[in-house]
């Protein structure tokens, strides 16, 4: 379980959901900020345009009234200088020189009548000639050699000359840049905060979902009485958990009934069997002659076979209903196979059979020892009963993709065609078989109860092949 929780957070559903939610959120807030920015920009523009229109009016008035003598330039220049002190959005400039405003009067002949501004007049003049400025509608003016454009308002005088008042957009841009920077920081903070909140809440909710699914996957494999955790909230996930638990209650109930039935059946059959066997044994010890003992001995043998058949059929029935009770412990399959081969080898060589094991070393499974022992013994019994002399049984044991793979191959006659389609069904056996037909059904039942698979095929060359997989002990799955 720890290996599951250790998987990188980027692969979690919470991460994906948070990413998408944050993306949508970021786009939304970005749109809001953009429109806000647009609004502020327009407003600043409007204010400076209004200021320009007003000032150019005042300057035009002053220019018209001031006598055109030597003092004209000084007076109008002074007025322009004063106006520049009242520029909107004005930032404190390091230099006292007025570089944010210019005043230009151009005569009707196109010559400069008055220039109050920073630097030489020619570039400004050249730039103004290139554009048409309609009175009352200030326009942008890009002066060559200067990075920041001016906003310029124009006025036509009675004497045919024009006056231009220019306001540098520097301060306006600076305000906007400051605003942008602040917007960006607030936006980034909001997006991060949004991501964190969404990620935290979805992660919490999904970790609860994961708890439910982990609990649910444990149930049925080992502990039927376990339930998924429920929370106090009455939300969808809490509802899911409660629904799941209700379903488990019903499953456990019907499984319990099945156990009651099979246990009662087993009990009702076993008690008389025990009594019969006991009586047979008593009379066997009393029987002195071989002729008297013989029928008793064979009756005991038959009884034992009947018992084993009863056990296997009930196990198969329960396993088919997914209700086989497992009492799990760690089993080393390699060791188990060696013990089994040790047990079966004399009988096999007596019959002229050979057995070989190719094992990939220690392979441990978490399984019910009694059932696994009986299942493997079943496989060996099967080979022992059905193979003709001088055949070889080859076992391969390896671990592959988190499961133990055990295959049994022989070079005997293989499965009879009439049974090969339904090998794992109950009571299916070949024409000449002497068994009770439960062997492979039992193998299949046990393997499936442990979450494994079985396949039985005829080999291409000759003989039969049974391959079964069983999940490894979780800690070894790496």
């Amino acid at each position, binding site marked *: 379980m720890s290996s599951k929780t250790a998987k990188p957070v980027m692969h979690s559903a919470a991460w994906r959901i948070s990413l998408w939610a944050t993306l949508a959120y970021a786009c939304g807030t970005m749109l809001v900020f953009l429109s806000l920015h647009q609004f502020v920009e327009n407003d600043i523009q409007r204010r400076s345009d209004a200021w320009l229109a007003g000032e150019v009016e005042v300057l035009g008035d002053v220019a018209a009234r001031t006598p055109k003598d030597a003092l004209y330039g000084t007076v109008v220049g002074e007025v322009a200088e004063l106006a520049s002190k009242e520029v909107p959005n004005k930032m404190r400039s390091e230099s006292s020189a007025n570089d944010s405003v210019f005043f230009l009067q151009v005569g009707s002949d196109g010559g400069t009548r008055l220039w109050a501004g920073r630097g030489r007049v020619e570039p400004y003049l050249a730039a103004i000639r290139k554009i048409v400025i309609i009175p009352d509608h200030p326009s942008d003016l890009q002066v060559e050699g200067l990075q920041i454009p001016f906003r310029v308002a124009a006025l036509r005088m009675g004497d045919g000359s024009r006056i231009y008042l220019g306001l540098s957009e520097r301060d306006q841009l600076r305000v906007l840049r400051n605003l942008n920077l602040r917007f960006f920081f607030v936006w980034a903070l909001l997006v991060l905060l949004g991501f964190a909140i969404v990620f935290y809440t979805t992660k919490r909710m999904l970790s609860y979902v994961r708890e439910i699914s982990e609990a649910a996957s444990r149930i049925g494999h080992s502990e039927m009485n376990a339930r998924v955790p429920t929370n106090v909230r009455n939300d969808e996930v809490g509802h899911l958990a409660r629904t799941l638990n209700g379903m488990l209650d019903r499953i456990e109930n019907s499984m319990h009934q099945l156990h009651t039935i099979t*246990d009662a059946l*087993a*009990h009702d059959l*076993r*008690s*008389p*069997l*025990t*009594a*019969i*066997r*006991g*009586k*047979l*044994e*008593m009379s*066997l010890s009393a029987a002195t002659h071989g002729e008297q*003992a*013989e029928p*008793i*001995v*064979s009756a*005991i*043998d038959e*009884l*034992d*076979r009947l*018992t*084993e058949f009863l*056990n296997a059929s*009930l*196990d198969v029935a329960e396993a088919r209903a997914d209700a086989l*009770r497992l*009492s799990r412990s760690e089993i080393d399959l390699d060791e188990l196979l060696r*013990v089994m081969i*040790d*047990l*079966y080898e*004399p*009988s096999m060589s*007596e019959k002229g059979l050979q057995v070989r094991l190719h094992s990939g070393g220690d392979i441990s499974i978490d399984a019910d020892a*009694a059932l696994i*022992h*009986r299942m493997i*013994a079943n496989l*060996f*019994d099967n080979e*022992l*009963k059905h193979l003709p002399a001088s055949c070889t049984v080859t076992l391969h044991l390896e671990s592959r993709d988190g499961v133990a793979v055990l295959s049994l191959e022989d070079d005997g006659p293989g499965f009879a065609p009439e049974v090969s389609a339904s090998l794992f069904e109950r009571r299916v056996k070949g024409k000449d078989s002497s*068994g009770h037909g439960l062997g492979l059904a039992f193998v299949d039942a046990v393997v499936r109860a442990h979450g494994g698979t079985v396949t039985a095929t005829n080999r291409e060359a000759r003989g039969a092949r049974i391959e079964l997989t069983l999940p490894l002990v979780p800690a070894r799955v790496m």
Partner: protein
Amino acid sequence: MRVLLVEDEHDIQAFLRRSLEEAGYQVDIASDGKTAERLAVETTHDILIVDLGLPDQDGISLILKLRKIGIDAPVLILSARRSVDDRVRGLEQGGDDYLTKPFALAELLARLRNLLKRNSPQSNETTKIKVLDLELDLLRREAIRSGEPLQLTPQEFVLLEYLCRNAGRVVTRSMILEQVWGMRIQPDTNVVDVHIYRLRGKVDGKGQHPMIRTLRGVGYVLKDR
């Protein structure tokens, strides 16, 4: 040795009483949990045989109840269930044993003996076993019959050791499978017989008095007389 048999089936009661008495036990019988509690308190028993399916209560609850009131004699549990549930496993770890029905009498007796032996202090760990002219050195893993060393595989030695430890008593195939191979299985082939047959070929050589006897329908016995 006094044994308390708690079993409700009369047929089983009857033959168990007879065979236990034949084996030299004094037998008290209870057909339900109530009687069992009364008898257990009245008399001290060396060992208890408890069937899990009693009419008035669950056998395990009875055992736990008896344990609570201070009765600590070992218990052999008889179960008609196929799978051993965890509570039985718990008791097994606590020193008790279980047997599923139907069982061989020899196995029942052997398990009773084991339980009694387990609860009496073990005097000294033997390193040599001698049965008639058969000698086993458990440390050197060597077996000698009439002065002649026997060529045994390690598994055959373990099998012979088990027979020797139970010399004179019947051992069944399932007992051999459990004790020698560590598995509670019931193969429907003659795997154990072949092992015994091979062992007999080595132990009971030509001209020697045969020691390993087959009791058909029951099991085997290593003769000590």
